[in-house]
Each structure stands twice: as C-alpha cells, then as structure tokens.
C-alpha cells in the first residue's frame, strides 16, 4: 500500500541515486528536473486530449444522443482524428495582419496555461516545485492570457476580432476580482500561499467550511476559461469565434488546446483549494486527485450543457454586483470566525450554517431583483413603448 502510494516519488528518488553514482550533482538534478517536466507536460496534454473526448460525450448524453462512437472503442480515438485534421489545414495569415503579433499570440496563450502545472500537487510529494507563493503565481499567469487575447484580436486586423478581444478582456478582468478574493479567504484559513501547504492543512475540505466560496470560485473559473454560460466571446452564433476568428490550422489548435489546458488547470486548482487535493482514505493520492479533478470538470460540462449564454452586460453585472459582495462577505465571516473560535471542528459547526444562511439570503435577494425586473418590464409593455415624436 505504501509502495503504491509513493510509487512515483520512490521512482524518482531511486533514479536520482543511481544517476548520482556516475554523474555530478548538478547534472543529475538537471536530468531529474527535465524528466519531471516532460512527465507533467505529457500528462497535461494527454489529459487535455481526453478532455475533448469527454466534453463531446457528456454534452451529447445530456442532449439524449450518443457522442462520437466510431473511431476506436467508445470514440476514444476521436481527439487524434481532430488533431490530424487541424494539422493538415492550410495556415492562412490575413494580408494586412501584423505578422509578428499574429504568429506570437497562440504561443503566448499556450505557455501560461502550461506553466500553471508547475505548482499543482498531483499527489503526496508529487509536484514540480513548491513555490511558497504558489497561488499568487497562478493568478499572475491568468493575467498573461488576457494579453494574448488582445494580441490576437488586434493583430487580426478585423474589427469583430477586436471587439471580441475587448469583451474577453473585460470578462476576464471582472472575474479575476472575485476569484482573487475567494483565494484570499482560503489563504486566510491556511496561513500560507503555497499550494502544497494548502492541501496539507485541509483536514476538513474547505468546501465544507465555505460552500459559498466554492460556488463563487466555480463561477469565476468557468468565466476565466470562457466556458458556457460565459462563452459569449467564442460562441459561433454570437461573434463567430471572437478574437481567434482569423486563425486556422495549427494556430487555431493552439487556442483550442489552451482553452482545455486552462480548464484542466482551473479544476486542478479548485480541487487543491476546496476539495482537499489528494487527500482521501483508501486509494492512492494521485487517484483521488484525478477523481476529484474529473468530478469538477464534469460539473463544469454539466453547466455547459444546461444553461443558456449570458449577455455581456448580464455577465459583468453578475461579477461585480453578485460575486464580489459574496466574496467580500465570505472574507469577513472567515476572518471573524478564525479569530473567535480556535478549534477546527467548531469552525465547521459555525461556518457551515452561516454559509447556508448567506446562500439563502443571496438567492432570495436575486429572486426579488428578478421579480422587480419582470414587473417593471410588464409595466413598460402595458404603458406602451416610448414613442418617437
């Protein structure tokens, strides 16, 4: 049992010791780090291929149909077919596009997405590096994505791409704020910004302590990645692919993959922050991590299959008027409770009911606001629309 739990760390230790017998220390470290990087990136890309398949199947089943089932058993080779298709497409660069920025944008969007995997603990002791500012590093990487979107939108020399880029950046910036506030409340409970310590300190998963924060984080995560119901930026019926409208072939594949890599990364972070990372009773830690991660991803795909899209003003409304107050209230509650009560288990008994009360209050307030809007709309319709004189 212990052996299976620690199989990867033991493997790397053994390999390191063996290399140390005939190589200088710095070279051994170089090789070990290189192997770790390749393994993590390989895992990330394979997981992402699997995610594209899973998305199509899950969304299809929600719609009472089967997803792809022709290539391979259960359609498992479908992502390879998609990859081949994208590789053989012609690479078109618009004549008046800014060539440097145009070619650089897919690269700039892919790299931060991959860099997030450096700090995520996949299991007990299985992480690439234990930065003691882990969470801050991740939020910063999310901001680089916005830069890549602006680059893509501007260099396409297409006003619709530019509009799409503006909207993307507006959405991402608005949803960074509640996300950071929720992360602040998690860090307050833990006392450290390092992701490894956050997992280690979660004897009670934080979702039980702060379910409202989990819901807020889930909404922000969906918006950061650009998934339904927040996919105004790339929905075909809205703005025909938004900021990457002029891309084709492999560059488009880069954007497409970056979205899914971001999706997996964001669910991995959600698992680490709220669901207890790799902690779990019987199975090895990395299996628990994968189970929790795919549960979050399934929930995000469930959201995509269920809800219609938000309009851009409704989206920003939601971020600034609903999520930010909820996140601030959450910080306040966490701050007060952690100072007043000292035992962890009493935290659970106090914060969980408080969160439920906050959730009910928020939902009823939202419901009342909606009622008011409906009544107002009816009045306007009854009065007659404003006439032009």
């Amino acid at each position: 049992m212990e052996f299976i739990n620690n199989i990867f760390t033991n493997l790397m230790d053994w390999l390191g010791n063996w290399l140390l017998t005939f190589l200088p220390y710095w070279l051994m470290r170089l090789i070990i780090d290189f192997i770790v990087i390749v393994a993590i990136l390989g895992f990330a890309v394979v997981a992402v291929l699997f995610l594209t398949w899973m998305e199509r199947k899950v969304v299809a089943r929600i719609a009472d149909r089967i997803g792809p089932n022709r290539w391979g058993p259960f359609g498992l080779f479908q992502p390879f077919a998609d990859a081949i298709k994208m590789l053989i497409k012609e690479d078109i660069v618009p004549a008046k596009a800014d060539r440097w920025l145009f070619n650089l944008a897919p690269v700039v969007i892919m790299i931060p997405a991959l860099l997030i995997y450096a700090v995520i603990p996949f299991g007990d002791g299985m992480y690439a590096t234990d930065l003691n500012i882990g969470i801050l590093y991740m939020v910063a990487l999310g901001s680089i994505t916005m830069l890549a979107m602006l680059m893509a939108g501007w260099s396409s020399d297409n006003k619709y791409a530019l509009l799409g880029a503006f909207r993307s950046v507006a959405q991402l910036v608005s949803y960074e704020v509640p996300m950071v506030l929720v992360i602040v409340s998690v860090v307050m409970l833990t006392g450290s910004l390092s992701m490894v310590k956050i997992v280690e300190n979660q004897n009670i998963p934080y979702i039980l302590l702060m379910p409202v924060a989990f819901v807020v984080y889930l909404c922000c995560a969906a918006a950061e990645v650009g998934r339904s119901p927040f996919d105004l930026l790339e929905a075909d019926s809205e703005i025909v692919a938004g900021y990457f409208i002029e891309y084709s072939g492999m560059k488009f594949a880069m954007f497409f993959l970056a979205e899914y890599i971001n999706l997996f990364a964001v669910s991995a972070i959600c698992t680490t922050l709220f669901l207890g990372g790799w902690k779990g009773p019987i199975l090895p830690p990395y299996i628990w991590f994968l189970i929790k991660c795919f549960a979050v991803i399934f929930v995000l795909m469930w959201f995509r299959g269920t809800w219609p899209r938000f309009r851009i003003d409704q989206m920003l409304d939601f971020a600034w008027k609903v999520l930010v107050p909820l996140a601030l209230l959450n910080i306040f509650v966490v701050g007060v409770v952690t100072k007043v009560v000292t035992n962890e288990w009493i935290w659970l008994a106090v914060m969980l009911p408080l969160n439920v009360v906050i959730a009910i209050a928020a939902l009823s307030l939202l419901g009342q606001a909606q009622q008011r809007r409906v009544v107002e709309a009816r009045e306007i319709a009854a009065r007659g629309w404003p006439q032009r004189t």
Partner: protein
Amino acid sequence: MYGVGVLKGLWVTIKHYWGTYLWDVLAYLRREKLLPRGIAPAGTAKRLEPRLEGLFTVQYPEERYRMFDRFRGPLVQLRDPETGGPRCTACGMCERACPHGVIFGIEGEGKGKEKRATQYHYDVGRCIFCRLCVEACPFDAIELSREYELGSYERNFVWDLEKLLSMGDKSGIQHAGDHW
C-alpha cells in the same frame, strides 16, 4: 431565472444524462433478447416519433431511415406482374414531358398493344426529380423511388433499361402514383 430555477435546470439535465445510460442498458438487454420488445426504442421508425424518450441517434451505416412515401428519388421502371417484362411501351411521352432532356434514346419492339421498350436511357446526374415524366406516362410504367444513397466512384450517371428495372425491383414499388 436566478436562484432556484438554475438548480432545477441542472436537475433536468442530469436526469437526461443518466437516463441515456439506462436506455443503453435496456437496448443491450433487448438485443440479447432478455427483455420483451417495445421497451427500448428500436427500429428507425420509432425514432421519428415526436414524443420519443431515450437516445434518438440513428447509427448510420447499420441502421437507415426509410424515406416517407412521397419522397422523390431517382426514376425506376416498373414490371408488368403477368409477363415480368417492363410495362413501358416506348411511347416517348416522358421524354417529351421532361423539362431537361434527362430521358433519351427510347426504342421499342412489337406491334400495337404488344409493343414493349427495349432501350431506355435516364441521366440521374441531370434529373431534377420534378416527377413530370411520371405524370405524363399513360401506362404507369415509371415512378420515382425512395433511394437516397446515390454517391458513386465513377461517372456512370446514365442508367439503361436493365438498371432501371432492377432498381424498380429493389425499391418494392407496386404501382405508380400509389401515394399521390
């Protein structure tokens, strides 16, 4: 829409999601004859019903939709049930009625009421399926079939009498103008 409505929506979709797996299991049991018919949606006709429950995907090469009765496919020649030969008497009314010149090269043998066609050419590639030829035929010898898989690897779009008769046999049409 905010509030409880979103959660109700989530409940509806997750019921659909798990429901499809249940339908899969029922279809499997039905195929292995462990369950009586009529429980899982079987056959393509059932899947066209408006109030269908369960998966409605038609797995194409293995299951095909049969087109509706008035569907306009390519032309076929019908056989005379007594003699087994073509009903067509090579009168040429269809050739004259066709707006496109798709039917050509009609020859026949025999005298009077015994005359039957021996040559008949029909160009599927240029037919617009308007059915004027069928309306013009005084002997109910031709009809439009319900065939829709017309792709081919060679350019052999001109069908002769043999092919038209065999397509007619395959289509199972008994009389011209049955459903009009």
